[in-house]
């Protein structure tokens, strides 16, 4: 099952696309190359290095960059005759390339990444043999053929299955959220005991958000039919994470244990139903069959609010008499919001 999942994953599909595009380009290059280099292979390799959202648009952008790099290198070699000056130009380009690559890595910035790629391609074009004006048309033709091979491979041979990719990208976030929520329900009542575990789960969730969040859904030009649904889901997931983090923040404050204990049963019940709903989402995203549940998803939250009203003053003007009253009210409100968001997410799947 795991092997099948890996075979269907975007990473594997992209690797296969790259391999097939490069192999086809190698064969075509050996028979029909217009220049004597491997520009067709390089072009096929570059054009297949796209993200999930918009492979054709990014492929076209990379193709334009390759063509521009070849033209720029020809301009440099044709106009600068001294080898020493070319050395200096190459050194400056290398330094700028390293600098921009470092910035692209540090800031995850696409403009920096594309600048460093562009500079790198110019350097390759200058250093490789036959970088004169006569070689330029042949190189450009090779690049266009290579790009076509790459785009055909990524678009038709092994196209991206967006629904599967979205599911596999969102699943780790939901799983981390579920684990975080489970530890949070214990942390609310014994913060000292669960502090370390809470921190670990929070870091895990943050790391997943940093590394695996499906940002490709927001790429310009992404499938119009799918994007609103995907974005709706992601925005609600994020709002839920915000609420969970806010709950942790409230739980870290010194809350009156006597007041909190009065809410113990009701809070535990709500958190349990929340876990059930999260489990439902996880099962849906991992294509498993869901177990039936007996909860109606609203009565437990109503019950929690009823218990709260018995503990804290019902009048809003009296609520800010004690910070404990406010903190408990905020906590219950957060729980209600989490439920509301979870139900929205579940309904959005139908």
């Amino acid at each position, binding site marked *: 099952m795991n092997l099948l999942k890996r075979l269907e994953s975007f990473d594997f599909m992209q690797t296969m696309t790259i391999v097939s595009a490069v192999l086809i380009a190698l064969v075509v290059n050996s028979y029909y190359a217009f220049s004597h280099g491997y520009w067709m292979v390089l072009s096929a390799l570059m054009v297949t290095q796209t993200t999930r959202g918009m492979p054709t648009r990014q492929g076209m952008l990379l193709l334009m960059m390759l063509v521009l790099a070849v033209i720029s290198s020809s301009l440099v070699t044709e106009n600068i005759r001294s080898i020493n000056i070319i*050395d*200096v130009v*190459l*050194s400056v380009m*290398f*330094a700028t390339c390293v600098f921009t690559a470092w910035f692209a890595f540090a800031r995850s910035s696409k403009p920096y990444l594309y600048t460093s790629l562009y500079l790198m391609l110019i350097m390759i074009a200058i250093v490789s043999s036959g970088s004169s004006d006569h070689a330029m048309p042949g190189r450009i033709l090779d690049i266009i053929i290579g790009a076509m091979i790459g785009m055909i491979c990524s678009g038709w041979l092994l196209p991206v299955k967006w629904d599967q990719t979205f599911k596999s990208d969102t699943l780790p976030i939901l799983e981390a959220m579920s684990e975080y929520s489970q530890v949070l329900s214990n942390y609310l009542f014994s913060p000292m005991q669960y502090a370390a575990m809470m921190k670990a789960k929070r*870091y895990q969730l*943050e*790391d997943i*958000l*940093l590394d695996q*969040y499906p940002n490709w859904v*927001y790429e310009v030009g992404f499938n119009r039919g799918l994007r609103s649904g995907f*974005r709706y889901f992601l*925005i609600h997931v*994020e*709002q839920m994470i*915000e*609420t969970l*983090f*806010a709950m*942790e*923040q*409230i739980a*870290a*404050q010194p809350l009156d244990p006597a007041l909190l204990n009065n809410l113990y049963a009701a809070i535990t019940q709500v958190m349990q139903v929340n876990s059930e709903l999260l489990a439902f989402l996880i099962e849906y995203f991992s294509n498993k069959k869901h177990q039936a549940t007996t909860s109606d998803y609203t009565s437990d939250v109503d019950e929690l609010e009823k218990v709260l009203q018995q503990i804290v003053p019902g009048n*809003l*003007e009296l*609520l*800010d008499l004690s*910070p404990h009253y*406010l*903190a408990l*009210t*905020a906590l219950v*409100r*957060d729980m209600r*919001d989490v439920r509301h968001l979870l139900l929205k997410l579940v309904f959005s799947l139908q």
Partner: protein
Amino acid sequence: MTVIYLLCVVLPVVAVLFQILWRPLTLHRQWRASLKTYLFDLDYLNKDIFSCLLQPEYVDNIYLFERRIHLQKIQCLRSLHRLREVVGSIERRNTDKEYLYSSWLNQLEGLFSNMLDYSQLRRRVTDYTTFSVCSQEFAGILQAMDGLFECISSCDREKLDMQVQALKNQIYRLEENYHHVLQIASREPLPFLLFIDSLNTFCMNMEGCCRYEFTQAA
């Protein structure tokens, strides 16, 4: 070719040697640089959150505003990650200040959660026209917070008390507005009360962060 050789081999080797030799001294500098970045990112996140409350276009362009908030949150998490790495390096060196840095880090993490807490107002209030009743107070709070972030980043002790007081005044003005207008005019007054409470906690946490800052500076 000599220039390329110099750039490719000699300079990186010299840079690595310097990094190893000066590492003990640079840890605090790394912390300061990462802290500055984090505060800068938090400031921007705060601006994005308040733009949802201040700009009436939010209702029609929720995806755009939420996307901005998401990107800024990711920047904050990245800076926080970097801060944790620096604290990890300090802890590995077993200095006497490691406890100070880790509790400082906890306080800074709290600021982020706190910000997410009060940002929930944008979602909890369904009638967005209510925000226009207190838009001046929101703008005042945003300005005071902006000044406070700037103050901590530049380690300006003289201005700090003034900025904290300015923020407290602005929160007080919103509180007054809540008691006299919002509680009556708004269909959902509770989210505003929770928002004010969260802002007060934020102000307190910021003061805590400043204390760490100046303990370290001393």
